[in-house]
């Protein structure tokens, strides 16, 4: 049994069928890449898998448990974390503050109205460790809104990691990053790969082909093909796309 499975997911917005009968699965400890052209339904697929939208049909299970239609909060609490393509940070908080409020350690005291969170050194050390993990050591007290783009991307992942997930969904983490930023991100993801089950939507095929254990290609709201990077290199669709130059 796979850690995360979806069967026959469909999602319609008005007259448009965005996801059609998608079935997929992610093995524990593996890194899965999702690729496909713009508008193929990749982000919608993420949104359905992480509870932002409820599927019209189909079933989603995580660790053997049915999580179909649960709210983002409930899914997050089961250990599924995600980052966003369009960045979603707590902009008036520092990098440290962003990570702090995302930690289960803080969430568990969420209704404590008396204790000073700033005096919780344990929490702050834990948060600082997360920042170090995503390469933001030294940026603890910089406002999220003042961080340069690449570091905001890293913080986006830091916030997702702060939740101590078993499973991590990353939506186009390299978007807008330069070569250097992408290389740094690749190191980070390679590091995380040993500890977590990861799913990444990505346009940078070089990035995916180097990191992924398995790649799914989504088009017209369907999984049109899947396989290991080596298998996909032989695939006609992939070859006809812009991959040839990269792989």
């Amino acid at each position, binding site marked *: 049994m796979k850690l995360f499975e979806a069967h026959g997911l469909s999602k319609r917005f008005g007259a448009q069928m965005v996801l059609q009968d998608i079935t997929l699965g992610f093995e524990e400890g593996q890194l899965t890449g999702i690729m496909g052209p713009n508008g193929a339904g990749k982000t919608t697929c993420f949104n359905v898998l992480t509870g932002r939208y409820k599927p019209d049909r189909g079933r989603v299970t995580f660790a053997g448990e049915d999580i179909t239609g649960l709210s983002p909060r409930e899914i997050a609490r089961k250990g599924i974390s995600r980052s966003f393509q369009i960045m979603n940070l707590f902009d008036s908080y520092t990098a440290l503050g962003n990570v702090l409020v995302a930690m289960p350690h803080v969430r568990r005291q969420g209704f404590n109205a008396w204790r000073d969170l700033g005096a919780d050194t344990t929490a702050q050390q834990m948060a600082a460790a997360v920042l170090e993990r995503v390469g933001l050591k030294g940026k603890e*007290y910089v406002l999220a809104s003042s961080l340069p783009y690449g570091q905001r991307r890293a913080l986006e992942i830091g916030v997702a990691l702060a939740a101590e997930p078993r499973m991590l969904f990353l939506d186009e983490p390299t978007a807008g990053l330069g070569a250097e930023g992408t290389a740094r991100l690749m190191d980070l993801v390679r590091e995380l790969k040993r500890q977590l089950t990861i799913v990444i939507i990505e346009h940078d095929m070089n990035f995916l082909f180097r990191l992924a254990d398995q790649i799914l290609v989504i088009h017209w709201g369907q999984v049109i093909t899947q396989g290991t990077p080596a298998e996909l290199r032989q695939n006609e669709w992939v070859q006809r796309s812009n991959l040839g130059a990269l792989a």
Partner: protein
Amino acid sequence: MQLAPGRAPLFPVPMLITLVLLLSTPLWVARAGLYQYLALEIMIWVLFALGYNLLLGFTGLPSFGHGAFFGVGAYAFGLLQLRVWPNLWFDLLGAVLVTAALGAAVAAFISHRRGIYYALLTIAFGQIFWFVANKWHTVTGGEDGLLNIKRLPADFGFVSFDLASNNALFFFCLALFTAVLIALWRLIHSPLGRILSAIKQNETRAAFVGYNVWLYKWLAFTVSTAVAGLAGALFAMAQQSAYPNVMSLHTSGFVVMMVLIGGGLVSFWGPVIGATFFILARDLLGAYTETWLLWYGLIFMAMVLFKPEGVAGVWQAWKGRPRKAPVATRAGDVL
């Protein structure tokens, strides 16, 4: 909302200034050409505005009908005293609980909303309360309101204080005010307060890191109405009456203006400045002209246009102006 790093001071300077100024008013308020009752009234409005700002400034939820809960507190205090049991502690606690219960009920209807929809719903609910206060003659006294609300003695068992004089009531209210001020100051630095502010900044992300956003919004509204209820009860005692005007849309608008002019969006202390400024303006401008509210409104508009962060924002900008090399932000500035 900028928040200090590390441990928050237990008694920050603005808190000490506020309390020392209030505590010392009997010594100088008459010489300044004012009167003790004014200090009492300012304190009550500051209390109301501080509770309101937990919702508006810290959780980012615009309630434009909050005057209703101030009024409910006043009526509840009066009715409990006149009809149930004229005991100060019972009536005060009852007023807070009744207001918080009604606040909780309203919050249950609106907490899935945000922005303009939230604001419109709060206005609608506020008007319902106002309407009921106006029309339910047998209970609320209709347009005449409740008269003869007494300043009951504060009975501690072994000793009892008479609160009939403005001075005595002032010190009693100051004690409660101090307690609430400290509690709210703790709250905004607590995990709860930080989460409320996170929800203000990004509701979606807060849900995706596992928070029950609805419940937190509900709680923020309920707590802020409880404070409004306490302020309203004290106001009923101060005025020795409760009347529909207290819960009108005006009152709701006043508290918004107080909080915004003072700078509640950027500082915990904004409402203190704003409410003081408002009541002083009412009395001082009001002594010269019937149309003081027009002038005050113009000041408000100018403020919103040119300095929406309010007085506290001007102060922060001045204090935080770059001196030497401007860094992204002063290291260790903000949570």
